């Protein structure tokens, strides 16, 4: 038996191809939306992986440092280094800000790190890691900075000495790594007028400027213009120690919150990007419905255009299932063309997105199955219309 659907598609291939391309662009958008979600999850995993840490120690009762603010004194890492199972511990600060790039701004997450310790980028694509204690930076390539370029952060200039990749915040902002002391200063640095104003206020306060206590005012003013806080301490567990065991020790004895990589991944994926994920899921549902409606409309319209042929086919004895099969195959054919176009389109335009879009084979497979199911479902309307065609309409009168 010849394939009626195949012959019809070949006969009006231009209509099918153009319709398939239109549908394909919609499917491409759907696949890209899924890719955006996968990209967010993958960014979170890569962020954790590239930090080189096994534990994230943060302020007690917080989900810091990414999902909630967290503030720790910067000498806590010394206490942690004394605990059994801690191989390395390093302070890290995070601050999202606008960084000057020539005449424009770049939104970046400025990360303060200690060179050679957990928290520095896992690998570089160009240049070197930070080696000096001040005024050097390693930038994610998405910031657009080049090696040797000078970055202005607050009042200081930093020279880009290295470039890394896939180091972005949960919001998708590329990271800029600078020395910890510089980052602490950048977080809390006030302008000169504000410092002068604060000093005058403190000096005018008799409680803080007692004549009989020499050095008190200087000490208070020094503490007001310096910052000894960090957002997290990243810990690398020693060989033979399970990160969870070390985390329990930290929680028990240091009264801090410590998260393992799995827990931090859970926070990032299930909490931080959960709203975005639901947003994307809603888009996916709407796009699926729109795709189904479009396929249903196209197949239905094409079927209505063949009512006379269908009546003749029924009159000359064609089985209903042959006619239904023809329409179903056409819907699936349209879905196949649409999926192929969508997959190619998504692959081509994904790198142009500002945030990482990860198109996985699993999602493609799921998308393919969903497209086929949607097309099959959408064809039922047209099949119903075709099966209701009275063969008598082929006979005049």
């Amino acid at each position, binding site marked *: 038996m010849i394939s009626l659907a195949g*012959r*019809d598609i070949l006969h009006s291939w231009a209509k099918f191809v153009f319709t398939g391309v239109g549908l394909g662009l919609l499917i491409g958008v759907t696949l890209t939306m899924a890719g955006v979600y996968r990209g967010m999850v993958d960014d979170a995993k890569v962020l954790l992986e590239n930090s080189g840490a096994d534990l994230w120690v943060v302020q007690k009762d917080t989900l810091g440092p990414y999902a909630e603010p967290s503030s720790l004194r910067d000498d806590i890492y010394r206490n942690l280094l004394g605990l059994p199972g801690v191989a390395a511990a390093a302070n890290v600060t995070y601050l999202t800000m606008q960084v000057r790039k020539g005449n424009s701004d770049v939104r970046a997450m400025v990360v303060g790190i200690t060179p050679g310790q957990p928290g520095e980028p896992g690998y570089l694509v160009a240049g070197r890691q930070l080696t000096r204690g001040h005024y050097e930076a390693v930038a994610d390539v998405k910031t657009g900075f080049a090696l040797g370029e000078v970055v202005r952060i607050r009042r200081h200039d930093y020279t880009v000495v290295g470039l890394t990749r896939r180091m972005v915040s949960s919001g998708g902002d590329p990271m800029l790594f600078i020395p910890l002391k510089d980052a602490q200063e950048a977080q809390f640095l006030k302008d000169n007028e504000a410092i002068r104003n604060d000093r005058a206020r403190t000096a005018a306060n008799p409680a803080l400027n007692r004549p009989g206590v020499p050095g008190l005012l200087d000490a208070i003013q020094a503490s007001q213009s310096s910052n000894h806080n960090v957002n997290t301490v990243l810990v690398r567990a020693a060989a033979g120690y399970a990160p969870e065991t070390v985390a329990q020790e930290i929680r028990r004895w240091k009264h801090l919150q410590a998260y393992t990589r799995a827990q931090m991944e859970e926070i990032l994926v299930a909490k931080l990007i959960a709203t975005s994920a639901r947003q994307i899921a809603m888009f996916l549902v709407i796009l699926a419905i729109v795709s189904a409606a479009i396929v249903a409309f196209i197949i239905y319209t094409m079927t209505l255009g063949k009512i006379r042929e269908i009546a*003749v086919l029924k009159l*000359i*004895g*064609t089985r209903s299932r042959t006619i239904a099969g023809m329409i179903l195959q056409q819907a699936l054919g349209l879905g196949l063309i649409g999926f192929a176009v969508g997959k190619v389109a998504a692959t081509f335009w994904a790198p142009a997105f500002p945030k990482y879009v990860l198109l996985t084979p699993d999602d493609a497979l799921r998308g393919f199955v969903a497209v086929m199911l949607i097309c099959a479902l959408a064809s039922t309307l047209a099949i119903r219309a075709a099966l209701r065609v009275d063969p008598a309409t*082929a006979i005049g009168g």
Partner: protein
Amino acid sequence: MNDDGIRIEGLRKRYGSGDTAVDALKDVNMRVAPGEVVGLVGPSGSGKSTLLKCLGAVIEPSAGRMTLGGETIYDDAWKTRDLRALRRDKIGFVFQAPYLIPFLDVTDNVALLPMLSGRPNAEARRRAVELLEALDVAHRARAQPSQLSGGEQQRVSIARALANQPPVILADEPTAPLDSERALGVMRILNQMASQYRTAIIVVTHDEKIIPTFKRIYHIRDGRTYEEAGEGRAL
């Protein structure tokens, strides 16, 4: 094969019921021998289309008896549940417009019916080519229907009607859109095919050009048929 042509006795068809009932066919009696072509002529609303639909097993008569090719298909009720198979195997249709399937080429338009009956594709296509040769359109075998002239399309539709070697062909105004020469050409082909394949053919027509070609004509008026001898003009 094709032993008994068409026999219709006391066929009735009533639409609706009660006060609104309409008797479209009141008492139809017809006989068409194998190899014979008869005309069915009548004014609009006389019941021609209803009779054709009853004969074509697309609507159910209300009473009577119909025999096609020696097999009683209706005797106050359908004798088979599978009317689709009945239409496919026992009845060929030729329409006013050829209604060829636009996405199949000429050969496959004709071969489709044998394929639907379960014959192998090669055998069905062989049969199609034979018929196309007999109807002098074999040279257009690979053409699409849209590439054919009106006369060629009608010949292909006749080939399609003959593809399953049915005992009966029902032709609904097959010459209406054609000029005299082509209309007579179609009638010549129908007569040839009827003799060659021993097929009983009923031609429903208004066409004054072809009415003189019938040896027998059934007039239908107010749901009743009246037989009349035709001129039987040579084609």
